[in-house]
């Protein structure tokens, strides 16, 4: 990089003050950041990324303590500045964190909050101008109709929009330097891709230098000019992005890269196709589920949210079935239907040929035993005040399967099977890492020896290394117990690795069902293509995001537009799409897609 660096970090160390001294969290970090540069910082969870990002903006609170080093911004050491001077610097230095919902005040309209912030750090800006600038920026980060959105409250924003509002919040003072800590983590791939594109635009439009922190290398490599690899609080490698990906020097980086799932190679698939089976173990027939929600701003009128619409598919024994889609597409509702937490308004869910909506008493208990779910959030899904052994015992006790010593033995053997040390039996889940917690979750599901396991975003909260280990564990369990898995996920790389067949959902509908390789190499629906184009990857992209994805968010499931629900974002939409809704159409083999273009190619082929 040329020119004088904007930011010079030298020998930066931060430690955690404990009773017995200082435990180092990050040590000896040093780098330069030039104007307009994007520096990516990657590392596994616990490598000290967030601590580093906070140290860069002098936001280290006890018990953390800066033990040595300097962060020199325009020849001033930020770490030594008194609070007064630091405040004036805040307009040049901005920080965006990973928890947009927590960072916005729920009681103030979004626009007003941002104006408030701008005027706090730059009081000379008149109110009208501040407002205008915020609205302009909301538009610049592609928030639709910014004039209206300005007056809305954070609860009316989706997660992606909140994250973008926070980016506006950081940018509104035209910072010279922005720290983005894991900003894309809570976002869907399509939205994350939009945010990344936005970041790159910023460097050219506002001359901002960005430190972009994430645990996902493919994502960082999409955005960053240079990458810093952090391992256990130390910089192990620093290279220009392309060079780092092509010729990693440090063994840690090499390992990190080798763990990143590849998508468009035949080795990407790590599972064998199941034995061709006869009877589906689950089949869902034309299931629909709507919710009534109170209309905003009215007293007693309701509107209907159509969360799942006319979904039909089969899952065969021994198969790994994937369900993918953006958040809000109805995946979770579908999971609730499959696990009979709710019944469909119309249509049926059959398990082993029985309609599960009609089950009760013994039949239901039997179904519950065969059919288990591993949930997404490792922190919410374990009762915090129950010992781990007791948590895993509970399903056995519920079904009255074992008692006394036998119960304990059974729990210990399951714990062993999922790789949990037996010593944890009487421990509370408090001290466990996210990965261990997910193992407890898996153990709780496995202890009943189910036939079907639904993985509802089970791995999405774990870092690459843990994901890798758990996927291996799932494979082992499948081999040993002949399980059928249903993976509900938005992580296409993982789906590519483990699933035999994949259903793609959009706005409550299944828009495509296809075999793994067909879906990835020859997607039949433009939405699938858009999703694929947005996957962060180190490989050469098969689908260019520019061709596949239009800006914007999915329409609200409350007032669905007539015609195909993807029309508003589809680059290939034509007249008919606005009036009629396509149905799932066979496109050779068992693969189906709901798009008029598929019909057209078929009729052309026939003609």
């Amino acid at each position, binding site marked *: 990089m040329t020119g004088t660096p904007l930011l010079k970090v030298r020998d930066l160390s931060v430690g955690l003050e404990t009773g017995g001294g200082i435990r180092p969290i990050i040590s000896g970090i040093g780098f330069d950041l030039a104007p307009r540069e994007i520096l990516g910082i990657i590392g596994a969870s616990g490598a000290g990324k967030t601590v580093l990002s906070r140290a860069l903006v002098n936001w280290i609170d006890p018990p953390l303590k800066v033990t040595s080093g300097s962060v020199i911004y325009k020849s001033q050491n930020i770490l030594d500045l008194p609070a007064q001077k630091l405040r004036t610097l805040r307009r040049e230095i901005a920080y965006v964190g990973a928890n947009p919902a927590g960072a916005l005040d729920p009681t103030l309209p979004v626009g007003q909050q941002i104006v408030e912030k701008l005027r706090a750090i730059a009081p000379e800006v008149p109110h009208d101008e501040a407002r205008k600038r915020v609205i302009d920026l909301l538009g610049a980060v592609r928030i639709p109709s910014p004039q209206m959105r300005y007056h809305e409250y954070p609860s009316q924003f989706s997660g992606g929009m909140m994250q973008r509002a926070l980016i506006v919040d950081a940018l509104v003072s035209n910072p010279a330097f922005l720290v983005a800590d894991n900003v894309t983590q809570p976002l869907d791939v399509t939205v994350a891709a939009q945010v990344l594109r936005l970041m790159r635009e910023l460097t050219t439009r506002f001359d901002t230098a960005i430190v972009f922190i994430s645990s996902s290398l493919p994502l960082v490599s999409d955005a960053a000019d240079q990458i810093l690899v952090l391992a256990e609080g130390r910089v192990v490698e620093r290279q220009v992005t392309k060079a780092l990906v092509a010729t990693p020097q440090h063994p840690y980086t090499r390992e990190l890269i080798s763990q990143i799932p590849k998508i468009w190679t035949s080795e990407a698939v790590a599972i064998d196709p199941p034995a061709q089976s006869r009877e589906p173990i689950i089949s869902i027939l034309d299931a629909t589920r709507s919710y009534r929600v109170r209309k905003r701003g009215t007293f007693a009128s309701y509107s209907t949210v159509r969360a799942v619409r006319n979904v039909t598919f089969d899952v065969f024994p021994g198969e790994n079935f994937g369900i993918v889609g953006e958040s809000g597409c109805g995946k979770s509702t579908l999971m609730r239907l499959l696990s009979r937490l709710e019944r469909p308004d119309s249509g049926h869910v059959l398990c082993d040929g029985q309609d599960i909506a009609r089950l009760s008493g013994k039949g*239901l*208990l039997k179904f519950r035993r065969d059919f288990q*779910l591993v*949930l997404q959030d490792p922190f919410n899904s374990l009762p915090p*005040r129950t010992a781990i052994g007791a948590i895993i015992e509970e399903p056995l006790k*519920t079904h009255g399967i074992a008692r006394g010593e036998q119960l304990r033995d059974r729990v210990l053997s399951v714990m062993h099977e999922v790789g949990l040390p*037996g010593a944890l039996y009487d*421990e509370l889940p408090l001290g466990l890492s996210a990965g261990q917690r997910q193992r407890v979750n898996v153990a709780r599901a496995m202890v009943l020896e189910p036939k079907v396991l639904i993985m509802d975003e089970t791995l999405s909260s774990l870092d690459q290394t843990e994901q890798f280990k758990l996927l291996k564990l799932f494979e082992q369990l499948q081999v040993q117990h002949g399980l059928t898995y249903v993976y509900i996920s938005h992580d296409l790389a993982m789906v590519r690795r483990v699933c035999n067949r994949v259903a793609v959902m959009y706005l409550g509908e299944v828009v495509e069902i296809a075999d793994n390789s067909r879906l990835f190499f020859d997607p039949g629906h433009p939405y699938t293509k858009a999703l694929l184009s947005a996957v962060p990857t180190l490989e050469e992209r098969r689908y260019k995001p520019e061709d596949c994805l239009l800006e914007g968010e999915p329409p609200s499931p409350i007032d669905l537009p007539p015609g195909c629900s993807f029309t508003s974002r589809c680059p290939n939409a034509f007249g008919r799409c606005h009036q009629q809704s396509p149905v799932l159409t066979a496109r050779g083999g068992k693969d189906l897609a709901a798009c008029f273009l598929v019909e057209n190619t078929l009729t052309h082929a026939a003609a």
Partner: protein
Amino acid sequence: MSVTETDIPVIPVPTQRGASVARRIWRIALASNEFRVGAIIFTVLVLAALLYPELSGIDPTKMSVATRLHAPPFMGDKWSWTAPLGTDQIGRDMLVRSLVGLRYSLFIGLSTVVLMLIIGCSLGTVAGYYGGRVDMVIMRLTDAQLSIPMIILAITVLGVSRPTIPAIILVLGLSSWPVYARVTRSVVMTERKREYVRAAEIYGASDFRIMVRLLAPLVLPPIIFVSALDVARMMIFESILGFIGLGVQPPTPTFGNIIADGRKYLLNAWWIATMPGVFLCLCLTSINLMGASLERARNRIYGGKS
């Protein structure tokens, strides 16, 4: 991809059972001096209340005009152990009377709190768990209950019916459960939305099982620790009722009626009204000491602030 047995890491299974959480809390609490002091005072008081009146053979209601208004031996001139805490206006032994009073007070205080806990927590759990209409009905009930001041309710009910021990317990218990119901409901409402409840529904646990096995261990402990303080509160209420003549009826001695009697002699025989107060104070202090150190031990285990 083939997977073999050797891929599974072998983890040694411990042969000894680790200490359960409850036992660890006890251990930490027992190690603190406060808990020990509280426990010793409490045990001595309870043992004395249970045993002394029987063992000494002194009848708490036996009058003896000859020995009326004797000061306690450490105050007066005649040193005698016959009445270690003096006698009242009609010559009854104050120590025995106070201890019998403590007996009633403790029994009523404890039973009332147990009753409050049972009613309040179960209604609160049900309201928070099911929500909707069930919740509305129960919460309106608590509102109604909260709007009637306890002491007025007690005076009305006990004034009309005979103030027997069960009646006193019922009145005190029924008038104080809404607080418990409200607290329980709010905790259950937030916990109910957590994913582990969903997981339990999926492995087939019934609503009752979820409430009892998953939610109760989470909701109850903090409430029970706080309720230790309510035992003290209820003992005071029992004394108030006794004082205004609506508690357990004389000649049975209770803190309330002893104090009421002693009030008239406060200037020349202060010990009559004071002794029950001293016992009440000792008892409440010991309960609070134990409660506080148990709470601290619990926080140590669960990772809260101490």
